[in-house]
């Protein structure tokens, strides 16, 4: 039959194609990562230099990572990227393994980003910060009064009703709202939730959309909304060349600092290559590629990266203002089991309003 001949020819051609691309990878590591690590400009130099294939799996949120890990066999995963504040949980659960501190350029790091209380346990290093940035207010300078943006509470007044989008991740958003209410993110309790809830619901009335990372970039860039609450350099910097009017600011209430840490699994199948990968990530070259990835940009933790970034890239990341910003930012809330559950419920309820 002609069809089968046709299909088998097609198959052979395509198989030939895909085989040729898979031939030269010998070693492999498996990494659970955020979307910035999937940029070929970041990953390919490492793969070529070490003759290794890096298999990447993206996930959202530490809860999801934990479940992926739970369903895996020991040795399945080598490298994990995770929220800095969640590292202690993972160390306690025995998921992350020790890393030799002397193999990593920790002296070059911004001191605030060493985060020893999170990364070091019993004098042993389990993770290092790779990137950080802020969840705060991003906006289009030509459409809103930049002066207004220095006060977070304007977002839950009626002034910009219908022109706001919210970043769809409960922890930073609840953290931000609580800072707007004058609370400390580190000491939130169930008693704070009613007030946060009222504010969130008022905010939702002013909100046009609730968006994930890329949708946040899209709606702000295409003029769908004028303000993105929860945005920061991760939103505007990647667009800074085409869209110089997009801006972000730490309001007087401050902003929320996020950071992503990287570590090696305690039961990694390929620990040497995994450590090499971590070394690449925190090296200036790896940091520069990651800091300006196609998914989002963020501040590198390694200060030496400055030399590899252009002036335009540094200004989009606010390199020179970091000292002031670091001092005015708070960290993500770190709710335990029940409070975490309550916060997620609160966020979902808000979505349904």
């Amino acid at each position, binding site marked *: 039959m*002609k*069809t089968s001949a*046709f*299909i088998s020819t*097609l*198959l052979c051609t*395509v*198989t030939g*194609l*895909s085989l040729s*691309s898979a031939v030269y990878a010998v070693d492999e590591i*498996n990494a659970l990562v955020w*979307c910035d690590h*999937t*940029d*070929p400009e970041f990953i390919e130099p490492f793969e070529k230099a070490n003759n290794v294939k890096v*298999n*990447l*799996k*993206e996930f959202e949120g530490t809860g999801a990572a934990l479940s992926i890990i739970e*369903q895996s*066999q020991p040795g399945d995963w080598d490298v994990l990227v995770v929220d800095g504040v969640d590292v202690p949980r993972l160390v306690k659960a025995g998921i992350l393994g020790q890393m030799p501190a002397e193999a990593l350029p920790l002296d070059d790091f911004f001191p605030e980003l060493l985060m020893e209380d999170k990364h070091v346990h019993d004098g042993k290093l389990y993770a290092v910060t790779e990137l950080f940035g802020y969840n705060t207010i991003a906006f289009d300078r030509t459409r809103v009064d930049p002066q207004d943006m220095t006060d977070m509470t304007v977002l839950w007044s009626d002034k910009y009703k219908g022109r706001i989008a919210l970043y769809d991740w409960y922890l930073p958003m609840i953290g931000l709202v609580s800072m707007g209410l004058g609370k400390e993110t580190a000491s939130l309790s169930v008693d704070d939730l009613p007030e946060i809830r009222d504010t969130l619901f008022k905010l939702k009335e002013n909100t046009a959309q609730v968006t*994930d*990372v*890329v949708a946040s*970039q*899209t709606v702000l*860039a*295409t*003029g769908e909304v004028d303000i993105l609450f929860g945005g920061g350099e991760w939103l505007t910097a*990647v*667009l800074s060349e*085409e869209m110089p009017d997009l801006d972000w600011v730490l309001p007087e209430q401050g902003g929320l600092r996020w950071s992503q840490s990287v570590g090696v699994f305690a039961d990694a199948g390929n620990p040497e290559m995994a450590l090499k990968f971590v070394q690449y990530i925190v090296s200036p070259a790896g940091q520069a590629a990651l800091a300006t*990835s*196609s*998914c*989002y940009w963020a501040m590198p933790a390694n200060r030496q990266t400055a030399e590899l970034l252009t002036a335009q890239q540094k200004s989009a990341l606010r390199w020179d203002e970091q000292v002031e910003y670091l001092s005015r930012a708070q960290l993500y809330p770190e709710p335990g089991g029940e409070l975490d559950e309550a916060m997620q419920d609160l966020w979902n309820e808000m979505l349904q309003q």
Partner: protein
Amino acid sequence: MRRQAGSWLSGFYLLLMYGFIYLPVTVLVLFSFQGGRFPILPFNGPSLKWYRQVLADSKLTDAMFNSLLVAVCSSFLAVILGFLAAFALARFSLPARALQRALLTAPLTVSYLIIGLGLLIMFNMLGVGRSLWTVGVGHVVINAPLCFAIIYSQMGAHQVNVERAARDLGASLVTTVWLVTLPMMMPSVMASFFLSMTFSWDEFIIAFLLSRFDVTLPVEIWSLLRSGLNPKTNAAGSLVFLVSVIFIVLMELLVFRRIKRG
């Protein structure tokens, strides 16, 4: 007079609905040539740079190959299972036929999300790793009932006599099925095969839940949408469209023409 007004109205409605049906794909193709990064007017271009990027993206071309592989293999298996079951249930009076039919077609009434989630939970609990194999299993689950229903509905009484004649001439049951029933049922077998391929090719949620590193095209496009703002998505979508249209035209010329003649 009234007749004329009616046909005017019909023509207008046809035009309107076809306009609606073609709107997204037109916009997609248009913006795939957009020179800038943002899918909004004003239009600057035309530019082919996003097509170049798509073709250079080995993840996308790999995903396309994976999709094709899963679609062909799972549809093949689905058709075999569906055909054999349809034959048995149409020709023999097995006990509990109604129940068997109901069981075999039950997956048609269940959302893909639930089928995918069920398989995911089962594979997790049994320690079966996720791969293209598991995606293929899921696609057979959704397509086998479809193949069964299509082939079963076309198994009329008129083929029975031919089959019986073959048996009377001494052909074994397997020979009869292979040389008599299958060729007679070829139109519906082919139709269900290509329908299965279409569904598998474009299926997202099962492939999303059941795949790991090797993903199918819809899943790759989804992660493309979620990993950076770029019009590569438009170019990828337009390319998929082009490939599919070429595929349909080929099928039309190579397969369905022959079936009609035969």
